[in-house]
């Protein structure tokens, strides 16, 4: 495996564009936790011409809905959820709000990849089902907005060496396709 690259979030343009499909990274800094309901609310705000409750310029959104945290823990289990459910919203957050990166699991729609290429945004995968391991990389969890959504609230996560793999880079190279093609033995 190529050497593991350490990067910081939020992403500056050079970091976002410099990531290559297939690269393993460790992310430190601040990422934004949001999934279905928070996305829906952000899009509603954009529709009404309102400002988003957080500035997404340079931000990296992590698609996650953690389990409740035990006393003494920062957060419960916090692995990625299926990114595809956010496909309807992601292009607008990229185009209209300056979103710079996404972390989740699973395939993305061509519309999302098109917006990613246009604006230089990478999509990374965290290991689905590795929620306990990922939780240990989350040092602080602060709800920023939509607290009424509980585990689905919009939140800031301070992370240290959060492991992820670049799946679709800002040039549109797709490691799901590349990696699978390398090991496919079916006619």
């Amino acid at each position, binding site marked *: 495996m190529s050497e593991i690259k350490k990067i910081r979030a939020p992403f500056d343009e050079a970091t976002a564009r410099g990531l290559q499909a297939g690269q393993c990274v460790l992310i430190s800094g601040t990422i934004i936790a949001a999934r279905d309901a928070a996305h829906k609310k952000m899009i509603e705000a954009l529709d009404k011409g309102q400002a988003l409750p957080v500035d997404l310029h340079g931000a990296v959104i992590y698609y996650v809905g953690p389990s409740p945290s035990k006393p003494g823990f920062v957060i419960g289990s916090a692995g990625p959820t299926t990114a595809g459910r956010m496909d309807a919203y992601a292009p607008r957050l990229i185009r209209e709000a300056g979103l710079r990166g996404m972390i989740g699991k699973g*395939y993305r729609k061509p519309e999302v990849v098109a917006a990613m290429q246009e604006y230089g945004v990478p999509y990374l995968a965290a290991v689905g*089902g*590795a*929620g306990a*391991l990922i939780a240990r990389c989350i040092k602080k969890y602060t709800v920023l907005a939509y607290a009424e959504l509980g585990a689905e609230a919009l939140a800031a996560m301070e992370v240290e060496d959060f492991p992820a793999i670049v799946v679709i880079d800002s040039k549109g190279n797709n490691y799901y396709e590349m*990696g*699978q093609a390398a090991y496919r033995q079916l006619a």
Partner: protein
Amino acid sequence: MREISVQHISDAVRELAIQACCILPQDVYAALAKSQESEPSPVGKSILKQIVKNADIARTDAVPMCQDTGITIIFAEVGQDVHIVGGSFEEAVNDGVRRGYSEGYLRKSMVAEPLFDRVNTKDNTPAMLHTRLVPGQHVRLRLAPKGAGSENKSMLKMLIPADGIEGVRKVVLEAVLAAGPNSCPPLVVGVGLGGSMEMAALCAKKAASRDLASSNPDPRYAAFEEELLELINKTGIGPQGLGGATTALKVHVEFCPTHIASLPVAVNINCHAARHAEILL
């Protein structure tokens, strides 16, 4: 006639829920550890390593290995010589789920109704309870929490006998390809053959939650399980869909007698968090 109190049943379900979500069963752990050695892709290998480490952390910290602690599926076998005392069996089971999910800090992922309001029941009830009456004086409870990432990729096709083995292969492969990375491979694939529509689905669910060390007792079906596993691992999907030879850890097939004109095929996709816990009361 043996008496078992509803309290005893509820306590058992509570324990099973927490145990299943936080401690990866030994059979699954062993299969994952073994796959680390055989996986040729370096990225795949590192993912499998993370998954095994995750299971270790979950056990040590007593936290769920995956935040999607699922819809609670319970197979209950109730001995017909058991008298359940003190209340309703189904309520006792749901009470156990309620306490297990709140006291065990598990995520509550159930909505009361699927189409209009989708309001969360806030305690993960009701369990999907499949109860069978069996001879004897014991109650066996098997609890298998199931996340949506894998459950959503399950599939049912009503084939006809002429579709035969080739037809079954195609359906299984179609389901695995559609699941791709979304179901968190390496997968455990449960295949249910025969019966009626709902019986095929139930067979698939049972197959998906069977112990990984087991194979179908009928040697023809055991061989078919192996063949399907080989086929699935040729797709190249690999760990997390990022390429490799470990797309599935295991394929289990369960079958049921069926109609002369039917060949139902159900595929229940399970993820590497193939959680299950069992108790005999």
